[in-house]
């Protein structure tokens, strides 16, 4: 059952869904995972970055995934690109045009000065459906 999203005011008051520390952790997921990205960059460790990519795909809700996937792609983790594409497709199918647009834009953004150099694993299809 998906966890209800709490507003900042609810967080301050102690929303029932945030009674556990785990709830708070997942509310501020990006700040917790930032050290993992820092570690991957500092060690130039693509295996760690790939492991983080898998975690993000598996554990986080789509909207939580977007900034982390985009950051990983910026660093040169090119396997984040098809994940962003799938995220865009799924978001569009669910009627979340805004998330779909953001994910698509991030997926198509060029990777400049990547930390990790990896071959592109999957070509972005040239016949992508455009959003209205």
């Amino acid at each position: 059952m998906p966890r209800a999203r709490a507003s900042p005011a609810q967080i301050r008051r102690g929303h029932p869904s945030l009674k556990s520390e785990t709830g708070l952790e997942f509310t501020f997921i990006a700040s917790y995972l930032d050290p993992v990205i820092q570690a991957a960059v500092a060690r130039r460790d693509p295996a760690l970055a790939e492991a983080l990519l898998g975690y993000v795909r598996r554990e986080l809700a789509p909207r939580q995934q977007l900034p982390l996937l985009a950051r990983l792609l910026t660093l040169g983790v090119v396997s984040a690109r098809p994940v962003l594409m799938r995220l865009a497709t799924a978001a569009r199918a669910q009627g979340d045009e805004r998330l779909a647009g953001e994910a698509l834009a991030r997926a198509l953004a060029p990777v400049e000065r990547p930390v990790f150099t990896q071959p592109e694993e999957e070509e972005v299809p040239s016949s992508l459906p455009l959003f209205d």
Partner: protein
Amino acid sequence: MISRAARVTADAGARQLLWDWCGEALDRKGWLYALIALAELAGEAVDPAWLWRLRCRLHANANRDPDSDGLTPQELACRRWHWALPDDLAQRGWDADLALWLACRRVEAARPFRRLIAHSPRPRHLATLARHLVARGESAEPVIHRALCRALAHRPPRSAGATPR
């Protein structure tokens, strides 16, 4: 303070004081300060087996609930990695706890904790492991790198807890 007292005196009084403190600290701040003090001791020539016993006593004291009934502090320490610490200084406590384990990890009773950290995909745990890698750079412990990679890949059974989504 207490670390100095313990180092300088190595006497039964200082040891008893630390033992009592770990069993009687009452609140988040108390647990945090005790963790930091124990991590300081880890950098001194203190018996790691005794240090791990102190840490487990503190952890059990801070994690009193029906689920932990019947478990010794050492058993509980290797089944649960949880601290309720003051929000603004919590990470300092978690970092101290990891440093503490690293100092004690060759102690027989502390060995199963390695499995625990490698099977815990909670964001706080991931952040704590990653912060060690960032802070220590080249001298980071390989065991922490392996644990972080495994924790990121670990799939906890869905029935055992709430889904994070």
